[in-house]
């Protein structure tokens, strides 16, 4: 079996000077780069097979502004960044035009990018180990099967499930898909066994290091009591929809089925809040690695790639997400499925609806929560998705369709397999 590919992420944070010229310079450089529009965008994202998603966001505000260039890729970050920064390559000129607007830019481009990369932060991936190439090929396979069935509806009528499947197998074999379909990459270890390994490891460590565990519990308890004190002092804000940022970010939404979201919030003052935030992010990260690694994050089934990052030297939390469907549904899922996780993260930032003991309240205050989220958004200037019409569920179904195509299946499994179509 093929070894699964290793995905990686980069977040290049380039500082900007706080001046109108800088912003103008960038506006000009970013103008017209729009992979959603079909008319020749200046950056050809499709040139890079290993690219899942990437986005460029200009974060302005009262504090020193910066440019975020984030991407989710297959393989090593350095290899990718060197490829896009290759002076003979297609992207070099465009990227240079962009980075020349940034503070302290001096070539070579590749070194600059690598120097400013802050990694993946706390990173969520719906399907670890699945490359963009495999995802797109599986989508193609589905389309071919579907169109074969549509053309042969009369032939398949009245056949038994194994007969229908045999017809499909035959057709796909003729198209030369068999070898590829049979060689699905192996799922990463933690995706297969994380749900056993994770809890077992946690229990083992907790027992083996009992004094540490107890000390940690006491620390968490004390921290929560202190957090509760701070919470009582938080003010309750009227629901304020700031028109401009909302329009700015919404304008680009929903041009494709998938969407991108960038939220920037200010971390509350004091030493405790940043500590609680980092702890919560670590817990969320571990929960993802060991448990939520099969297409949903705490019950939210619509996120392909997401990350939280605290840019070095700033008291800001940046959240970047590539998700399915509407923002309204995404935020609704947040509230209904994952409010505990959300609260423990964003309650440490300014303007979040009031929580009790970090995890209660907060996102339950639907209107305030959505206004908070909207107001924290920054417009995504450039966004690319390698498979923008596919949902997380589609990706899962397509993988099962491919894996089951030539596998030995029981009659029940054949029924289930045909249901994927």
């Amino acid at each position, binding site marked *: 079996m093929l070894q699964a590919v290793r995905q990686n992420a980069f977040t290049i944070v380039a500082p900007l000077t706080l001046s109108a010229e800088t912003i103008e310079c960038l506006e000009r450089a970013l103008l017209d780069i729009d992979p959603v529009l079909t008319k020749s965008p200046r950056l050809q994202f499709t040139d890079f097979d290993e690219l899942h998603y990437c986005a460029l966001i200009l974060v302005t505000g009262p504090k020193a502004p910066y440019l975020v260039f984030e991407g989710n890729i297959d393989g090593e970050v350095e290899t990718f960044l060197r490829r896009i920064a290759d002076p003979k390559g297609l992207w070099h000129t465009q990227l240079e035009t962009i980075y020349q607007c940034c503070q302290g830019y001096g070539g070579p481009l590749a070194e600059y990018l690598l120097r400013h990369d802050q990694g993946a932060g706390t990173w969520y991936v719906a399907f670890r180990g699945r490359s963009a190439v495999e995802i797109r090929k599986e989508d193609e396979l*589905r389309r071919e099967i579907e169109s074969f069935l549509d053309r042969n509806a009369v032939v*398949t009528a009245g056949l038994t499930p194994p007969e229908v499947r045999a017809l499909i197998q035959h057709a796909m074999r003729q198209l030369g898909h068999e070898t590829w379909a049979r060689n699905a990459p192996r799922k990463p270890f933690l995706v297969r066994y994380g749900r056993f390994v994770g809890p077992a490891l946690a229990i083992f460590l907790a027992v083996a290091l009992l004094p540490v565990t107890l000390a940690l519990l006491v620390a968490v308890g004390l921290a929560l009591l202190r957090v509760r004190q701070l919470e009582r002092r938080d003010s309750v804000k009227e629901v304020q929809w700031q028109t401009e940022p909302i329009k700015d970010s919404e304008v680009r939404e929903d041009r494709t089925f998938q969407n991108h979201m960038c939220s920037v919030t200010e971390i509350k003052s004091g030493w405790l809040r940043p500590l609680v935030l980092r702890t919560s992010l670590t817990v969320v990260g571990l929960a993802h690695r060991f448990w939520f690694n099969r297409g949903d994050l705490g019950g939210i089934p619509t996120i392909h790639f997401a990350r939280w990052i605290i840019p070095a030297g700033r008291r800001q939390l940046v959240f970047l997400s590539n998700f399915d469907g509407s923002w309204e549904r995404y935020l*609704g899922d947040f509230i*209904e499925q994952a409010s505990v996780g959300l609260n423990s993260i964003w309650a440490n930032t300014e303007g979040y609806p009031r929580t009790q003991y970090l995890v209660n309240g907060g996102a339950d205050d639907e209107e305030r929560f959505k206004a908070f989220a909207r107001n924290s958004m920054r417009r995504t200037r450039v966004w690319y998705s390698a498979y923008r019409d596919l949902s997380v569920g589609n990706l899962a179904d397509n993988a099962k369709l491919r894996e089951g195509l030539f596998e030995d299946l029981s009659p029940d499994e054949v029924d289930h397999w045909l249901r994927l179509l």
Partner: protein
Amino acid sequence: MGPYPESEVQGLLLSSYRRWRFATYLFLRLQTSDKKSVHRWLARMVARTTFGEASYEKRRDAKLNIAITATGLSALGVSDAALETFAPAFREGMTSERRKRILGDDDESAPPWNWGQGEQHVDFVLLLFHKTEAGHSEQVDAELREAESADLRLVYRVPLQALPSSKTEMHEPFGFADGISQPVFDGLTDAEGIGEETARLHRVEVGEFILGYKNAYGEETSIPRLSDSRDADPFGKNGSYLVLRQLQQDIAGFWNYFRAEASRSKGALEVERLAAKAMGRWRNGSPISEYPDGPGPHHADAPRENDFSFARVDPRGDRCPLGAHIRRANPRDSFPGERETILEQVNHHRLLRRGRAYGERIEDATHFADDHGERGLMFACLNGNIERQFEFVHHSWCNNPNFRDLQGEVDPVIGSQPSGGGSHSLQHWPLRQKLSGIQRFITVRGGAYFFLPGRAGLIQLASLHQA
């Protein structure tokens, strides 16, 4: 009894005026700088507006409800700061680029419209209902005279089809029984003595429809205000957001499509069944998930038939396809998961529907030859949160190409189909069937977001400049 004072709430929230069979909607616009006359018109309007369902109201032959758009509020002098207290979608209006994308109002459905946009934008809508035809025409004339005297321009007028006088069901122009599935909340007569299952499926909090009360999240919805002063009663209390959309229906196109598909299948599928597979109900309103073999009892004879749900009898969509219209517009317990939780979440997106058909009535929609007359549904719904209710249903369910992880298909009845024609999967053992080449059967001809104020709100509006 509900938690709200009935006499403060416009009647449309509590009743669809089934017995007030004749109706006309008048879309009006302010065109004078002399706002005094408009305020006088509004002040007199308070007495004519129908509130609550008090016994004296029930005897009245005429009903009138009034609602205002964001441009109307601006024109009356409401400040931008005050407008910010209204829902973003309302403020923005239905025809911004963003809203058009959410609602799928592109291609033929894109403006220009009969009303609601550009030159045809509207400030007010008057919803007029009457028990008798003669009385109704007098009522409309009188309101037009009043509006004219206040220098309001009539932008557009939509006469609605008279409802059938008998107890038979309302049918929408494609010929399907319509308006069956409605949420219930405290204070409605429908809410009295409902069974446990009905409550589970259809009961929602008052605040989902009337502002100022607890909503589905157990929170009080924020209430819009007309001024910055925090002392004054908020304008929006006991009000609601009203969504109106004039949807032209291609009746001949709809039935011709299913006839063609039926004949293509060489008799394997009948026309009526295919149309029911798209709608999710037979024409008489009986759900296809309960009656897979043929129409069940007529909805009017078996009103409890609306307590059906999908998870138990039809989890995979073999009877009612996962992407059928009613399974998108109100999925009930259709999503995978724990049933109670799913129902609770789905009920965060309910609409109080008040639609009526417009255009000349057709006796047999299934064999209608197109006469190029304009017919369709004047869609109307009330909700406390436009984004989470009306727009969500439209965008995240009906027009969502990957709803339930189907791939690239939208609502077969009301969806914004791609120009090359869309598809609709009919789940089936052992293999799905697929309808393709589905055209848009519905074209938007007008629309706007309105605010339907309560009594105190309407009075505040009328006295806006006397203070």
